[in-house]
């Protein structure tokens, strides 16, 4: 009977990490360009974050502090599962506080708390190709990127306006990077797109199943596609967060009863918690640190 194998730091062997890092370097050198890489099977299924995991595993050092979120929360099941994976295979410190993390792996949200130059944000990407739903063929989409043939993206936006009066993309909203490549920012709500632009942090995007890595180096120009007379705009709510009172965050809708009563709560659990702490301090005067 075979012995239980010993795993390398962060699961991937050094050779694989080197391969992934080379792909990351290429990606950083060509902001927004999708670099093919030989994605490995991981103990979590394809489609559940293996790209993000491979990127994180390749850049983690023992000194890092890792935060993992899904839908903005540290406590959703897949975030828990991925955090545990790294706790077990890398034994790095983990945190739920955005400000204390050096590496943040995320699915479908960018943290509300502004990032710094000492942080890396790793996005989990299901479908890296923004042109895919208009053009199913990989051979054709590669040529379109190479030749900057992006007319078809604006065709889609034009159709939305013609049909609905407004652009009808609310998440995974395509953006032009550094004036050259159009990229899919992963299914973050368009609300988060402005955070991509000129961020001091390094932003890395990993798609395991589709085997692509791309990147936004710090301080990269990112412009969400739009028309001059129908400019890009973000979502807003009439309500504030029921827990912390925030009016400028992305809110989750919670259905309270069968009558359809709803309340709205910050999607970013850490940010909301921080605000609630600040609210409590402000209310009760200065207190000793907990």
């Amino acid at each position, binding site marked *: 009977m075979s012995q239980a194998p010993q795993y390398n730091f962060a699961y991937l062997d050094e050779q694989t990490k080197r391969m992934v890092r080379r792909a990351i370097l290429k990606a950083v050198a060509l902001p927004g360009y999708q670099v093919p890489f030989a994605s490995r099977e991981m103990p979590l299924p394809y489609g559940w974050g293996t790209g993000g995991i491979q990127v994180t595993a390749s850049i983690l050092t023992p000194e890092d502090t890792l935060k993992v979120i899904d839908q903005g929360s540290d406590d959703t099941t897949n975030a828990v599962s991925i955090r545990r994976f790294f706790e077990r295979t890398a034994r790095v410190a983990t945190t739920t506080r955005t400000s204390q993390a050096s590496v943040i792996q995320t699915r479908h949200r960018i943290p509300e708390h502004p990032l710094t130059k000492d942080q890396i944000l790793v996005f989990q990407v299901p479908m890296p190709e923004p042109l895919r739903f208009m053009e199913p063929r990989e051979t054709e989409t590669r040529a379109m990127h*190479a*030749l900057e043939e992006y*007319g078809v993206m*604006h*065709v889609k936006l*034009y159709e939305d306006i*013609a049909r609905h009066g407004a652009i009808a993309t609310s998440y995974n909203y395509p953006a032009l990077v550094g004036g050259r490549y159009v990229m899919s920012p992963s299914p973050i709500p368009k609300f988060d797109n402005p955070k991509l632009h000129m961020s001091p942090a390094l932003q890395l995007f990993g798609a395991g199943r589709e085997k692509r890595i791309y990147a936004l180096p710090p301080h990269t120009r990112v412009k969400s596609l739009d*028309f001059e*007379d*129908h400019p890009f705009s973000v979502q807003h709510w009439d309500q504030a967060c029921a827990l912390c009172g925030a009016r400028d965050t992305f809110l989750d809708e919670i259905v309270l009863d069968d009558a359809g009563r709803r309340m709205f709560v910050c999607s970013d659990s850490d940010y909301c918690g921080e605000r609630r702490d600040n609210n409590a301090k402000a209310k009760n005067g200065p207190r000793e640190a907990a």
Partner: protein
Amino acid sequence: MNFEPLLRVKDLTKFYGERPAVDRASLELWPGEVLGVVGESGSGKTTLLNMLAGRISPSQGRVLYRDEENWLDVHACPEAVRRRLARTQWGMVWQNPADGLRMNVSAGANIGERLMALGQRHYGSIRQAALSWLAKVEIPAERLDDPPLRFSGGMRQRLQIARNLVTGPRLVFMDEPTGGLDVSVQAKLLDLIRSLVTGLKLSVVMVTHDLAVARLLAQRLLVMKAGQVVESGLTDRVLDDPQHPYTQLLASSILQA
């Protein structure tokens, strides 16, 4: 500059195995002229057209296109250049309009696509341009937001033409543009094509098996048989006074129609 041809083709040949589908075809196309390529099916005319448009590479020979001051070897230049030409200076009108349109996208988006590809970013202006082109090709304005899936064959063809002309190309390739349409629709379409070509001073290479269409639209003709150009010249001369036996055969068949 005005006295230079737009297209210069020498000994263009395409082999499929042993057989030449096109055998040493040579021609010149001048600005503002319509060149008809006629012959029966299997004559090689569509293969010739596709080589001129850069879509099939020749086995031998060259296609030279005059891009402003420079001659461009269509098959030797990088694909990026060919694709740019195809979007800006050239048009391609297919016999089946579904091949040249996005069927599931509105007429307005179909026409506006090239403009958007060239960087136009004002929705209102793009929509306006599309409307004005709908008028030029005589499609009612209220169809602007309808997809061509819901159009008749004739209307689809007119939309295809508009989609190609919106960037003001210099050269349009047409493959049986009125094929598959019934006679009265054809007549209207031919009228439209003729007025657009004259009005916009387009150069056109048009493949057709229909000599009546050729007579109406083309100033000059190439007659093809089994891959070879057997006769060429001014349309009226070729059809009224054919020299080659095959042309004589073709021409006599119109009289019976």
